[in-house]
């Protein structure tokens, strides 16, 4: 399902809205969101600390800020990863930076105790 649509029948994109991760989770709970234009909320964010001996060449300037500390534009949202895959491929054609993330709690799958 494309984001920013008012009905399922009209799948047109409106002006993309940049949201924080918290806003995305509130708007699309327990769904896979396809996001683009991912940017750190604060470029000086120090969620991941590096000490003075950091090997700065390790990451070649790659952004390693967690999605929770970024803003992004939601391109589409789906119930499952498989349903989101076509939207990711489509978004890849239009955006440099695309990702798909689950907005719910990340927990191990439930299991049953065979021997109590």
């Amino acid at each position, binding site marked *: 399902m494309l984001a920013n649509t008012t009905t399922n029948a009209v799948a047109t994109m409106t002006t993309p809205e940049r949201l924080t991760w918290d806003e995305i989770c509130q708007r699309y709970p327990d769904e*896979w969101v396809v996001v683009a234009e*991912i940017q750190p909320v604060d470029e000086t964010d120090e*969620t*991941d*600390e*590096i*000490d003075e*001996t*950091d*090997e700065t060449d*390790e*990451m*070649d300037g*790659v952004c*390693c*800020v*967690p*999605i929770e500390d970024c803003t992004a534009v939601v391109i589409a949202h789906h119930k499952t*990863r*498989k349903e989101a*895959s076509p939207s*990711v*491929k489509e978004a*890849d054609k239009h955006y*440099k*930076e*695309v*990702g798909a*993330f*689950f907005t*719910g*709690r*990340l*927990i*191990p*799958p*439930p299991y049953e105790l065979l021997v109590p």
Partner: protein
Amino acid sequence: MTVTCFRPHDDLIIVDGRVWGPRKTRGRPLRLVVDTGAAETIIVPGILDGLGYNPRDGEAITVMRSAVGHEPGYLIRVERFAALRHQSRNLRVHAQDLPDGWNIDGLVGLNFLRQFNYEVRSEEGRIRVERVRV
């Protein structure tokens, strides 16, 4: 030495990563679980397919046995993989679907982790990582 934060009260140690492929020069952001019990780093096949990798280019076809059956996968070398603020080039990863309900993109396994000395500080929610110099 690098330090990566995670949420200490989550059920899993979840960190961000990135994988690059021939079709996407900026790579794809990932959410991964650090799993010192996994021999191989796992990435779900859908992500690798989207980056331009093909099972036919893989080094081996695999089958992962679980309680609910056999899950096919393949081993393939990726151009570049990053997690815990470090990266590896030409890293072999296991393209493998994860069970339903695992809403993550893969696992950071020992074949990546063994390049480093690392310290998981569970209470603080920090992983300190230092590359092993050979």
